Each structure stands twice: as structure tokens, then as C-alpha cells.
């Protein structure tokens, strides 16, 4: 019963911590853009917090460079459960253009368990809002794998 109540609360007003794991900053600017008047995520109760210990979700951008990896793991451990990890942008989703570079780890899922991937270079602010809503189970996914075998 308590679990269900907590889960219900969790979806209502999610507090987000934004971490840049080596990204070019494009996705980070788009995340900040979601705060600005045209998109205004605060009307959904989503706000950016300044410490991971207050966060419900971790928004991570960037392909996770080698240098930042250890600190990112420590950051993840500082976020209390239950938590969501959201990979924002192509670099975090699949490693981007530098997925095989010597200096990167090749994407967020090589380092942390990811709940949802939001591809895009950079993803539009609307796409980020959609992705967060999808992570909360409020909207359905709109992509699925496609396969075709020639007869």
C-alpha cells in the first residue's frame, strides 16, 4: 500500500539533477531551455535541483568521457532510491560520433543502468519533455524496431 502511494507520488513532481558527462553542451542548453517560458517544465512540477541528494532522476548528457566516469559513478550513488536515469542526446544514448574514441566510454549504458534513452543531436526541448514523461509512464513509446527480409 505504501509502495503504491510512493509510486503515485513519484510520478507527480519529479525533481531532476542534470549532469554533463563530457557533452558538447548542446543537449545541456536544450535541457535549460525546457525551463524557459515557452516550454516551462515547472508547471509539471519538474524542477532542476542543485544537489543529487534531492533528485529523483538523473539527466545525463555526453558520451561519458574517460575522465568523468568515476565521478559520474559517485554521483549516481549519491542519488537516493527510487531513481531514474535518463540518457539525453545521441552521445549518451549510443555514444554519438565518438562512440569508439579512445577518450570516451561509448555511451551512458556502458557505465550506468539507463531507464530511458532520448536520442537527438540535440533533442528538441519537446523531445526531452516527452522522454521524461515516457520515463514516468505517462505517454507511450513511439518507436519500435523495424526488420525486413527480402523474400
Amino acid at each position, binding site marked *: 500500500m505504501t509502495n503504491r502511494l510512493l509510486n503515485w507520488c513519484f510520478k507527480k513532481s519529479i525533481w531532476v539533477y542534470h549532469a554533463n558527462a563530457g557533452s558538447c553542451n548542446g543537449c545541456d542548453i536544450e535541457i535549460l531551455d525546457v525551463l524557459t517560458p515557452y516550454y516551462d517544465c515547472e508547471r509539471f512540477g519538474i524542477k532542476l535541483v542543485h544537489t543529487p541528494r534531492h533528485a529523483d532522476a538523473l539527466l545525463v548528457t555526453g558520451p561519458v568521457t574517460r575522465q568523468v566516469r568515476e565521478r559520474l559513478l559517485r554521483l549516481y550513488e549519491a542519488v537516493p532510491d527510487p531513481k531514474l536515469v535518463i540518457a539525453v542526446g545521441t552521445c549518451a544514448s*549510443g555514444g554519438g560520433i565518438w562512440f569508439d574514441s579512445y577518450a570516451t566510454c561509448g555511451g551512458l549504458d556502458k557505465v550506468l543502468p539507463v531507464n530511458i534513452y532520448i536520442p537527438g543531436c540535440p533533442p528538441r526541448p519537446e523531445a526531452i519533455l516527452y522522454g521524461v514523461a515516457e520515463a514516468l509512464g505517462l505517454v507511450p*513509446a513511439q518507436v519500435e524496431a*523495424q526488420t525486413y527480409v527480402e523474400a
Partner: protein
Amino acid sequence: MFENVISELKEVVFCLRAGQVTLGYPFQPHPPEPGFRGVPRLDMQKCIGCGACANACAPRLITLSDRDGYRTLEFDLARCTNCARCRDVCPEQALTMSQQFETAAPSLRDLRITLQLRLVSCRECGAVIETQRMARKVLDKLPEPLGLSPQEVSWLDLCLDCKRTRAMAEAVLAKEV
């Protein structure tokens, strides 16, 4: 002090004039501009498996592999940077950049496209020549009637090396060499 008050009043007027601008998204759609480069869409019927897109793709998310009579093209769209080079170089216009941007997915598998096309192999040595669709395309482009001898037509399903060997053998036989 007075200056301060005036400037603060101006700031208030500025904000009030701006008013409320928040978009209705997500309760109302906010479609992107035409020409927006969203997630790529592959027309499975048009693709001939030439691999020009794989050559041009900067994140190298398109891979081609030939096995068991099929050429497999895999697109790992999680890595797509939406640069549209694949669309620009595709000779068949099989790739288009859609308007779709709501592409969040819980698993990377949802962002994959796999296409398998039949291959044509050399009837002499079995090496892969090209896909069947490419071969048909070549035939379609050749003028009618074909200005080839019946022997040359029979070489159409040989790979380049075997063609050369055959041509050399024929030339020796005809004492041209």
C-alpha cells in the same frame, strides 16, 4: 536611487508586455518546421543495398555484412546525429528525414532498423557480386536491345575476377594474345 526605481519599473513593464508565451505542448502538438531533420526513415522497398549511406555516415551507425546469400544492413539509430548525409547521398531516395522527434525509447533495440536483401553470387566461384536489386537496376539501365553478344550476356552473373579469367582464356584461344 530614482534611477533604480525607474529601471525596475521598466523591467516590470517589459515582462508584462511579454505576457504568457508558454506553448500548449504536450497537450497540444508543436510540430517542427518543414525541413526539420528528424529520425531517418528507410523505405525498405527502394533500398538497393549499395552502401553509399554507410560511407557517408559520420557516426558510422550503418553497417553492411554479407552472409548466407543475404546482405544485412543495420541502422543503429541511437547514434544518429540527424545530419542527413545518408539522405543526400542515397541514389534511390530511399532515405528521408522524418518529422518525428518524439523518439525516446526504453531500450536501444527499439531504435534499430534491420534490412536483409538477397545477394547475387558468381556462378563460377561463388563470390558475392552485388544485391539482386542492384543487378536488376543495372539491367534496367542498359539500353534495349543490349548491344552485347550472347556470350557477353552469359557473363553477367560472373564476378569481376572470373570475367577477367574468362576473357583472357577466350583471347588466348582465339590466338589474340
